C-alpha cells in the first residue's frame, strides 16, 4: 500500500518526521557522548529545531486549499502549520534556556521529552479526527508531566509533576468520555463529519451541548482557563523554570489551536450561540480571577502563572467573538486576533520566563523581593524583563499592545462591547502588578547590589532573539497579521 502514497502528504508531516528523527539523534548522542560534553545536547537540540523550522517554512507549507491527509486523520492547513512553527520555536527557545540549568541541561532525557511533547503538539494542531486528537493530547501531556517533576530531589518539583499528572489525568478522562459520547451520538470520529452526524442523529440540543462541555473540560485544562486553572500556579512554581515557560506558552497555544478547530468544525450551528456565551463567561472569569489573584503574589513564577491564566482569558475573548456564525468575516477576524495574540504572547512570555530562569540560576530565588536592585546588578536582564512585562501589560511598541488591540477589536466587531470593556479594565489591573515588579527591579535597593548576575551565552542569544521578536511583532505587524489571517481563513 505504501507505493500509493503521494509524496506531498509525506511533505505535509515533514516537521513531525524530523522531530522524531531529531529525538533519535539526541538519544544516540546521549549514549555515546562524553559526560562532560552533555551540555552540548542543548545546542544540538536547538540547532536541530532551528533547522526543522527553516526547512518546514521552506518546503512544508500548505497550499491555499486545506486538505485532509492520511485517511482523514490529519488536516494539512495553515492554522495547523502556523501553530506547529510556534511550538517548534517555543521548544527551540526552551532548550536554550534549559542548557545551563543544573540537573536539567546535562540530561539527554530532558531534550528527548521536550521533543516528544513538541511532536504531540504538532499532532494536536493538525488532527482532524478525535482519536488522533486524543493521541496528540496524550503525547503532549505525558512527557510534560515528567518534565514538570524533573528535579527528583526537589519536593516542590515532584509535587508539581504529580499534581499536574493528577489534574491532567482527570480532565483527560472526562474529555475522553465526551469523545466517546460524541462518537456514540454521531457515529463518526471524523471531526469534520461530527456536526453533520449530530444533526442527522436528531440529538436534543441539551444533550449535544452537555457532551461538548465534557470535551471543553479537557481543553480548558490545557489552556488553564478558570475554573480549570488550579494546577497552574503550583505546577509553574515547582517545575523547572524553562519547563514552566514551555507549559505556559507552547502548551497553552496548542490547547487554543485545538479549541478553535473544534469549535468551528464540530459544532452544530444551533449550539454555537450557547457555546460562545459559555466562552464569554469563561473569558470574563479567567481574566478577572487571574488578574486579581496575581495582585497578591510574592513569587514571580506564581505571578506569571496567574498572569497566564488572565492571558488565556484575553485570548478567549477572540474565540468568543466567533459568535455570528453566519457572518464569516466577523468570525474570521476573531480567529485572526487569537492567533496573532498567541504569537505575541508566546514570544513575550518565553522572554519573561527566560529572564526569570537566568536570575534563578544565579540567585536560587524566585521571590519578587529578591529582584530588588536587579537593574544595578544586571542592566541587560532588567531591560529584558521591562520589555517582556510591558508587552504583557499591553504597551506599545511591543507585541502585546497590538495583540490586545486586535482581540478587543474582535469583541467590538462582534457586538460584544461589554466583553471588550471588561477586558480593558482587566488590563489595568494587569498593568498594576507588572509595574510593581518593575518597581522592585528599578527602584528598590538591596545589600547585594554590587553582585553581578552573569548571563551565559544560550540565555543571551535566546533573550535577544525574543526581545527583537517582541518589538517586531509590535511594530512591523503586517506580515504576522497576514499569517494569522491566512491561518484563520483555513478554518472556513
Amino acid at each position, binding site marked *: 500500500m505504501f507505493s500509493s502514497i503521494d509524496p506531498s502528504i509525506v511533505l505535509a508531516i515533514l516537521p513531525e518526521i524530523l522531530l522524531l528523527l531529531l529525538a533519535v539523534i539526541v538519544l544516540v548522542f546521549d549514549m555515546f557522548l562524553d559526560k562532560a560534553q552533555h551540555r552540548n545536547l542543548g545546542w544540538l537540540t536547538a540547532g536541530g529545531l532551528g533547522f526543522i523550522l527553516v526547512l518546514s517554512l521552506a518546503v512544508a507549507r500548505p497550499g491555499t486549499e486545506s486538505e485532509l491527509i492520511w485517511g482523514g486523520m490529519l488536516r494539512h492547513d495553515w492554522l495547523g502549520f502556523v501553530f506547529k512553527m510556534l511550538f517548534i520555536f517555543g521548544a527551540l527557545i526552551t532548550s536554550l534556556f534549559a542548557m545551563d540549568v543544573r540537573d536539567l541541561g546535562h540530561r539527554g532525557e530532558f531534550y528527548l521529552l521536550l521533543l516528544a511533547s513538541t511532536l504531540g503538539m504538532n499532532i494536536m494542531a493538525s488532527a482532524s479526527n478525535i482519536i488522533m486528537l486524543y493521541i496528540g493530547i496524550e503525547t503532549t501531556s505525558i512527557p510534560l508531566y515528567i518534565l514538570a517533576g524533573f528535579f527528583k530531589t526537589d519536593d516542590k518539583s515532584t509535587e508539581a509533576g504529580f499534581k499536574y499528572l493528577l489534574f491532567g489525568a482527570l480532565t483527560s478522562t472526562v474529555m475522553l468520555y465526551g469523545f466517546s459520547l460524541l462518537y456514540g451520538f454521531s457515529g463518526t470520529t471524523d471531526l469534520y463529519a461530527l456536526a453533520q452526524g449530530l444533526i442527522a442523529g436528531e440529538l436534543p440540543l441539551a444533550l449535544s451541548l452537555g457532551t461538548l462541555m465534557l470535551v471543553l473540560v479537557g481543553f480548558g485544562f490545557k489552556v488553564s482557563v478558570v475554573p480549570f486553572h488550579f494546577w497552574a500556579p503550583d505546577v509553574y512554581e515547582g517545575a523547572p523554570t524553562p519547563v514552566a515557560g514551555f507549559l505556559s506558552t507552547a502548551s497553552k497555544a496548542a490547547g487554543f489551536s485545538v479549541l478553535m478547530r473544534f469549535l468551528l468544525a464540530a459544532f452544530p450551528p444551533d449550539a454555537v450561540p450557547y457555546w460562545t456565551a459559555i466562552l464569554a463567561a469563561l473569558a470574563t472569569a479567567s481574566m478577572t480571577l487571574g488578574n486579581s489573584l496575581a495582585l497578591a503574589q510574592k513569587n514571580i513564577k506564581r505571578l506569571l502563572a496567574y498572569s497566564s491564566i488572565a492571558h488565556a482569558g484575553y485570548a478567549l475573548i477572540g474565540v468568543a467573538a466567533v459568535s455570528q456564525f453566519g457572518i464569516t468575516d466577523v468570525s474570521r477576524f476573531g480567529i485572526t486576533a487569537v492567533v496573532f495574540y498567541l504569537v505575541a504572547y508566546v514570544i513575550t512570555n518565553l522572554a519573561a520566563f527566560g529572564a526569570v530562569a537566568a536570575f534563578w540560576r544565579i540567585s536560587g530565588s524566585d521571590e519578587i523581593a529578591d529582584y530588588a536592585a536587579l*537593574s544595578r546588578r544586571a542592566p541587560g536582564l532588567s531591560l529584558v524583563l521591562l520589555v517582556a512585562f*510591558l508587552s504583557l501589560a499591553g504597551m*506599545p511598541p511591543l507585541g502585546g*499592545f497590538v495583540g490586545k488591540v486586535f482581540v478587543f*477589536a474582535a469583541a467590538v466587531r462582534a457586538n460584544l462591547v461589554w466583553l471588550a470593556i471588561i477586558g480593558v479594565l482587566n488590563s489595568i489591573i494587569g498593568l*498594576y502588578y507588572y509595574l510593581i515588579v518593575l*518597581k522592585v527591579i528599578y527602584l528598590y535597593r538591596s545589600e547585594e547590589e554590587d553582585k553581578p548576575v552573569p548571563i551565559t551565552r544560550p540565555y543571551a542569544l535566546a533573550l535577544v532573539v525574543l526581545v527583537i521578536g517582541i518589538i517586531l511583532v509590535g511594530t512591523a505587524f503586517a506580515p504576522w*497579521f497576514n499569517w494569522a489571517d491566512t491561518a484563520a481563513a483555513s478554518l472556513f
Partner: protein
Amino acid sequence: MQFPILSIIVFTPILAGMLILLIPGERRDEIRVAALAAAFIAMLLSAWVYFSYDTAAGGYQLVEQYDWLPVLGISYHVGVDGISAPLVLLTGVVMFTGVLISWGIDDRPREFFAFLFILATGVFGVFVALDLFGLFFFYEIAVFPMFLLISIWGWKVTREYAAMKLTLYLFIGSVIALVGGLAMYFSSGLNTFDMLALENANFSESFQRFWFPFVFFGFAVLGGIFPFHNWSPDGHVAAPTAVSMFHAGVLMKLGAFAALRVGIMLLPEGARFHMPWIILLTLVNVVYGAFIAMVQTDFKYVIGFSSVSHMGLVLMGFATLNREGLIGAGVQMFSHGIMTALFFAVVGMVYDQAHTREIPKLGGFARVMPVTAVAFIIGGLVSMGMPGFSGFIAEFPIFMGLWRYQPWIAIVAVVSIVITASYIMRIIGRVFFGQLPEEFVGHVKDVTALDKVALGMLSIILIVVGVYPTVMVPLVQSGVQNVLRLFGGA
C-alpha cells in the same frame, strides 16, 4: 518624494535613546552630550516645521503616508495643521531645555535620558498622527516611561504613590478611549483608521452622543479635566524637574489635543450635545484649581494646581466650540506649555539649593539667583494674562469666546485671574524677595550657565509671542478653521 521631516522628528528621540543605552553607564559626560545633541536636532527640526507651515494654504501639511497594515486600513500617516504645529515646536523646546536642566542628574543618567526620549517620541507621534491607530500607539508610548521616570528619579516622599496613580489614571483613560476608537472604526464601515476619512464617516447622531464621552473623557483625563485631575498635582510634584516640565508642559497638552482631534473632530455632533455640561466641569477646573493653588504652602503644589486651572481654560476654550474660544485654546496650549515648563524649572532650581519647597521657609532668593527670579516673574505675568505676554494672547480670546457662548460663565471664569494674581504675587514676594533666611546664607548658590540659557530661552519665547502675536495667531487660526469646517463652517 518630499523630505520626511516629521518622521525624522518623531524617531530622532527614540533612536537617540537607544544609542544612549549603548554607551557604557559610567561615561556620563558623553551620555549628556549625546542627549543634548539629539534634543537640539529635534528642536531645530521642530522649529523648521513650525516656520515652514504655509498659513495661507492651511489644512494638513508635510504629510507622509505609508501602509502599515493595509488589510485593516492601518497606515502610518502623519502631518501637521495649525493647531499641532505649535505643539510640535513646544515639545522640541521643552525637550531641549529639559535636557539642559537635567545636566546635574547623577543617578543613572543613561537610563534617565533614554526613558525621557522614548517619552518624547510618543509625544511627537501623537501631535503629528493622522491615523487613529497610530495616535493610540504613540499615546501609550508617551504614558509608560512616565512611571519609571517618576518612580526612579522623583521626590522620595511620594514618588511611588504618585507614579502608580498617574500611570493607572492615564492608562484607564486611554483604554476607554481605545474602545471608543474601535467602535468608530467598525461602525464607520470604511475599514480605515485614517482620521481624515473618519471625519467624513457621518456617524449617526445617537452613535456620536453615546461614544463622545468615552473618547473625550478618556483623553481629557490627561488634560486634567475635573473630576479626573487628581493625579496631576501629585504627579507634577513627585517628578524630577525635567519630567515635571515635560509632564505639565507637554503631556497635558497631549490629552487636550487628542480629546480635540479624536473626540471633537470625529464626533462633532456628540461634542455639540455634551459640551453644555462639560463646560461647567471645566469651569470648576479653572476656578477651583486656582483656589486650591492659592492655599498650598508647597511651592511645587502651587504650580501643580495652577496647571490644573490653566488646562481648564484650554478645555473650556474647546468647549465653546466657537472661533474665538478655539483660537485662544490653541495659543494657550503653547503658552501654558512654555510657561509651566519655566515655572517647574524655577521650582527645581530653588529646591536644589534650599532642599525645601515650603513657601514660609523661603525668602530673598532674588539676591542669590537673580536670573531665576526674573524668569519666574515673567512666567508669573504670563500666568496672570498680562498684556505684552503670551498669556494675554491666549486668555483674552478664550474669554471672548466664553462671552459669546454664555456671559455668566465668562464672568465666573474671570475670577480665576484675580486668584492667580494673588498666588503668583505671594510667591514672588515670599520666595524671591524679603530676607534670605539665616540657614541659607552662604549655602545657596546661583544656578549654572546652562540653567540660565534654558530659562532665557523660555522667557524670550513667552515675550515674543506676547509682543508679536502674528508669529502664532494666524497659524492657530488656520488650524481652527480646519476644526470649524466640521461644524458646518460656523
